[in-house]
Structure formats: C-alpha cells, structure tokens
C-alpha cells in the first residue's frame, strides 16, 4: 500500500516537473486566485478553465489534462500570462501541454485544431511561406467539412484575396533543412530524457 502510493506520487510530481521543464515556468507557484480564468476569452468553449488546468498539473493529473479540449482551444492570447499575480506563464504551459499531448498521441479531443496546425506547418515546410488558399482546401478535405466556407471562395476571388498564384515562396531549401534538423534534434533529446534512470536520480522530481 505504502510503496504503491509513493510510486504514484513519484509519477505525479514527475508530470509537474516535466511541465515545468518544458514550459520554463513553475505551475506550482499558482495559488488558485482564478484571475486567469476570469480573463480567458475561451473558457466558454473548453472543458476545463485555465486555473483548473493549473491545479490538475499541480496534482499530477496527466491524463485529465492531456486529454482535455481546453489545451487545444487556448488561443495563445497571453491574457492569463499578462495578468497572473504569481508570474506563471500559462500560455507557455498550454504550449507544453499541447506538445506533450501530441507526443503521447492524444489529439482526439480537438482533432480539427491538430489538423489545422499540421496543415500550416506543412505549407511552411514545403514553401517557406504560408499559402492560405491551400490551407483552407486541405483543412476541409482532412476534416471532411468539404463545403465549409465554400460560399466565401467566389467573394474572395472577386476581391483578389484568394489568388492561386499570388503567393511567393521563401528560402525553401533552408526551411526544409530546418524542419528536418528540428525533428532529428528533438527525437534525440526525447530519447535521452526517457532513458531509464536509477530511482534515486528521480529524487525531488523537480528540474
């Protein structure tokens, strides 16, 4: 019994430590005043509010946090980060959580957002710059919302806002290499951080 709960505690504080390391801010500093939640423009759409996310991170509730919709619906507006009296950078925490969720294959809670993110980065990787029209078409295909915003196409064409040939490209080779290097470096960094360590090196659990 006792041993079991100690082991659980270790994984819980391990989650907090990982979020702290990846976000560069300390979620343990949050004292639950609720100011972040009060100012967050997206609370109406999510399943958790930002203060609740912070509390669950403190409690090591990995699954509840990584499977929530809220981390994907956060619009990165930085209102919470700007106002937190404890100087917790919540926007960075949300980024870290999305990255961890993606690594764990947990993007089901907000598939459309994950698809949109991947679509934009795909466009940047192949062209060096974003091609907006391609983004919309891809998004609709991949989410099977084939006719979403379809009525806007003609209006935008007419206004010259959607020009299939309009977008220039930028430094494509450099950008492609950059993406490949980032993927390689991060895979190596991940492999290094998940190598089994002796239990004593886990002591304290904080980075």
């Amino acid at each position: 019994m006792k041993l079991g709960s100690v082991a659980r505690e270790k994984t819980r504080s391990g989650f907090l430590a990982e979020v702290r390391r990846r976000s560069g801010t300390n979620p343990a500093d949050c004292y639950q005043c609720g100011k972040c939640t009060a100012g967050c423009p997206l609370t109406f759409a999510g399943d958790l509010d930002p203060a609740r996310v912070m509390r669950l991170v403190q409690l090591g509730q990995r699954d509840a946090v990584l499977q929530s919709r809220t981390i994907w619906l956060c619009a990165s507006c930085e209102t919470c980060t700007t106002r937190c009296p404890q100087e917790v950078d919540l926007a960075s925490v949300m980024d870290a959580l999305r990255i961890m969720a993606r690594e764990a294959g947990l993007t089901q809670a907000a598939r459309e957002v994950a698809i949109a993110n991947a679509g934009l980065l795909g466009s940047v990787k192949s062209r060096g710059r974003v091609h907006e029209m391609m983004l919309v078409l891809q998004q609709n295909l991949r989410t099977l919302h084939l006719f979403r915003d379809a009525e806007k196409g003609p209006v935008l064409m007419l206004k010259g806002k959607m020009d299939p040939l309009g977008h220039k490209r930028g430094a494509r080779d450099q950008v492609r290499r950059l993406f490949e290097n980032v993927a390689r470096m991060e895979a190596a960094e991940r492999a290094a951080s998940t190598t089994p360590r002796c239990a004593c090196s886990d002591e304290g659990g904080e980075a």
Partner: protein
Amino acid sequence: MSYAYFPGCSQQGMAAEFDRSARSVCDRLGIALSEIPDWVCCGATPAHATSHLLSIALPALTLAKVKDADAVATVCAACYSRLRIASHELREDAELRARVKEAAGVECAGEVPVRHLLDILCNDLGVAAIRERVKRPLAGLKVACYYGCLLMRPPKVVAFDDPENPRVMDEVLAAAGAECVEWPYKTECCGASLSLARPDVVCKLANDILREARDAGAHVIAVACPLCHTNLDLRQADVARQYGVRYEMPVLFFTQLLGLALGVPEKGLGLNRLIVSPKPVLEKLAAA
C-alpha cells in the same frame, strides 16, 4: 533610422492591402522600409504549439538575414509577437542560441530590435510629424481602435504601451483627425488561431467585439493584424447567420485610414478589397 521590413505571409495574400497601405504610408512619411530578402514564415501559433525549438528557429532564419538595419519593422501583430519573442529568447539564452544554430544553420543573437509599425510611428516619427502631413483629416469619423491580443502581450517582451489600455493606435489615428472612441474590447482576443479549425468559436468572439464597437458608437473598426481582420470583416456574414445580427461594420487596417488622411490615392490603399465596404461611411462623411 533604417528599417528591415518583414511583410509576413498574409500580407502577400489575404491581407495584401495591409502591405500595400503600409508601404504607401511609410513612403508619404519618409520612413524607409527595405524588405528582408527571402524572408520565411514566422511559424505563427502552429509552430509554438508544436515545438518550441521550431518556433524560435523559424524567426531566427529570417532575423539572421537582416544586415545594416537599425530595426526590423513588422505590421502584423502576430508576426511581430513571434519575431519579438524569438529575438528576446535568443538574447537571454545561450543554450537556445546554440540549438537554433544547429537547427537553422545560421547564427542569430537577436540583437536587431523587432518593432511594430505603430511603435515606429509613435516613438520614432512622432504624432506631431504625422499631424503636419495630414491632407484630408478624418474629421467626424468615429473609430474603435482594436489592438487584439498579441500586439501588447506579454508585457515582459513587448512593452511599448500599456497592455490593458493601449493608446498608440488611438494617438496615430487622432493625429489623422479621427475621433477614437473609448471601448472595453481593445485587447480582447478574436480567436484568430482557431479561425480555420473552429469558426463557430471565432464567431462568438467576433460578435462580442463587433457589438461592443457598435455600442460605443464607432463607424469603423481599425485593426493591426490580418487575422483579426479576417475574423471581423470576412466573418460578419457568419456572425449574422449564427447570431442574427448584421453589423455592416467596416473593418480597416490602421494604415488604410492613415493613408486616406495623408492623401494616398485609392489604389495605394486597397479599400476595394475589404468585404464590408467602407465607402458608404466615408462618402457620408465627405458630404457632411
């Protein structure tokens, strides 16, 4: 002062009128912009939501191309935020600098300051110089200046105005003769990064912003971000469908309004590219 100009992806597509009007305005005001050759996308929210290293390395690739300039000038609030955060972190963190060098193949220490055009107009040129060059003051035009979320946040990195009640755009447009209304939604987020994935969510936020601007008596909304612009201008039709309210509220880039006051001809401003036409409002004003 010499400025290395970073237009940003939207400004060569959906928001080409932002780029065009910004160049026209700078031309009139004697601000020399030279475009950074072969610049690349800043990565926007998808990059920082996917990989921290990627979100710094992409802007670093562009920043490393800047030679002999006093500052990097941006117009898009989102690009500004990403470039500014990258150069801030590169200055502070030697280990990150080394990783970025390995990833991007370039050295970037984040030394050239990244500035937004509003900052340049207010603090380098000064509003008095703008006032002197105004040819057709926007007298009688009530403008709600919408800063959006990223222009002033986070204050540790941005800090050219008050993050809760910024004034720069109000001052620039007041110098152009407009009457800038006080309203509470100046820095509320429009949900831009969700525009593709969750238009329903974005419509709620856009509706709130449009309603507050209308209730404050604004004739038009001025913006400094192509994503805000799309959400507020293009999505008015969706807002009407979702909430049953037709605002018909013209949403202009602040550079378009300033350009009008400086006497830039129509084709240097791209007003005809806006979905909700500002012509009725402007014509009424001219007739008054």
